[in-house]
């Protein structure tokens, strides 16, 4: 059941590089990451690739396979024909360290700019009481394995490096939504989602949702609800008026 596949893999350091051709053995049941490992073991021992769990749980082996952001460990070779040339490149949005390995520090920096979970001061550990229905939405977002493919595919920063300062990317806008929907979080996050994290840049073209290996409905369940919450606060005079009159809190 094994055959020789044609691979084109990006090789190079710090952005300079080119696609190199390889012919490599493929066996039944293998995934793209296996083939990259076979290249390491047989043809290119210094081929750099980041990986870890090999089961789609850690989000380390993000790469672009035939131009699409994918996890190397979750892309089965059986999804390609034997004749097909398979092109493997590093994520496009982040600087390259070497070969398939990117510098993803942008994401860690953005993570740090989102204020942490802020519970009320008077609730002590062990006293939290939350219903399942109240945590389910945030739980979906916490499935995120931080592969950063959503941030990679998002054209706001993929095609416009200059937007990186103003835009936190789907991953961290979703993190804001997660906290904003948390039953015990008391921080005000809605206005800052728009003003500090660039929610307005999102034009909901849903590529983040398309590439998410955890199948999180990022756009429908996190970004759009967050946009609507921002509208409540910033753009809806009726809600604003209602809040003034009835002195309601935001939820």
């Amino acid at each position, binding site marked *: 059941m094994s055959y020789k596949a044609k691979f084109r893999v990006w090789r190079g350091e710090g*952005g300079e590089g080119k696609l190199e051709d390889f012919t490599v053995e493929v066996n039944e049941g293998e995934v793209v990451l296996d083939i990259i490992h076979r290249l390491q073991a047989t043809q290119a021992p210094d081929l750099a690739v980041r990986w870890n769990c090999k089961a789609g749980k850690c989000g380390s082996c993000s790469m672009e396979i*035939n131009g699409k952001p994918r996890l190397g460990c979750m892309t089965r070779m059986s999804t390609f024909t034997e004749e097909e040339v398979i092109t493997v490149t590093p994520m496009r949005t982040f600087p390259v360290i070497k070969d398939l390995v990117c510098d993803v*520090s942008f994401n860690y920096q953005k993570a740090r700019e989102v204020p942490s979970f802020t519970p009320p001061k008077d609730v002590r550990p062990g006293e939290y009481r939350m219903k399942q229905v109240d945590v389910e939405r945030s739980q979906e977002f916490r499935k995120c394995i931080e592969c950063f493919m959503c941030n990679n595919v998002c*054209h*706001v920063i993929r095609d416009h490096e200059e937007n990186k300062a103003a835009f936190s990317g789907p991953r961290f806008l979703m993190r804001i939504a997660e906290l904003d929907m948390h039953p015990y979080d008391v921080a005000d996050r809605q206005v800052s989602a728009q003003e500090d994290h660039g929610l*307005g840049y999102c034009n909901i*073209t*849903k590529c983040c949702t398309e590439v998410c290996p955890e199948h999180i409905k990022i756009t429908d369940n996190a970004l*759009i609800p967050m946009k*609507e919450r921002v509208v409540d606060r910033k753009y809806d005079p009726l809600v604003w008026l209602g809040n003034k009159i009835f002195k309601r809190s935001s939820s």
Partner: protein
Amino acid sequence: MTQTTPESPVRRQRAQVTVRTLRTDRWWLQPLLTFLGLASFLVYSFWAIFNNDYFVDPYIAPFSSPCLAESCPEGARFLGFAPFGDWYALPPALLILAFPAGFRFTCYYYRKSYYRSFWLSPAACAVQEPHGKYTGETRFPLILQNLHRYFFYAAIAVGAILTYDAILALIHKPAGLGTYILLANAVLIWCYTLGCHSCRSITGGRLNHFSRHPVRYKMWQLVSKLNAKHQPFAWASMFSVMIADFYVRLVAMGVISFSFA
């Protein structure tokens, strides 16, 4: 260093891949079909607005309902009203068009589809967009997309009127094929309207404690179910309204004239 703080940003650059995309699939097909679909709707709408055969008892073409001008035939007027008098000489459809059009134009799904297919921003995932600068919906005019919920309120009225039209046709005996077309259209319009993301937020999405609002939570769940199919309903209701409208006009023009029309 791959630290959580980047150190020497100067040295860093992206992989210098020169092609727009390395995708090998037919990524252009989806935006092309979307473009054709939306464009056909625009072309049809333009024609329909200026077409005067919008009423044949008991049917009124959805694009021209409610008919609010004195120029409308007696039976076509919504509840008999005609607030726009003789002085109004333009097609009556223009009066109300802004509401359903605005609803669809600011709809989160349609935004996705035309940003992709008309503005190519991006045409497909991981395909470079052809624009040098991008600010999204952060400034005028696109910041007005945030008014979607007002169009949603209007869309409820539109849905109600279309339902009223269908019911009017239904109580008319004997009911013809057009009745069922109008009815099916009304159902699809509701499925689309109530599955709206703004509706989802208004019914329950903005709450943080579903458990304290069981009724709104139930509503939110229902809306969420429809919302998950917002795209198919967007297309289905767009074509159904087009078909229903065209059908009524064909009947009105006498092109269709069989006995159960």
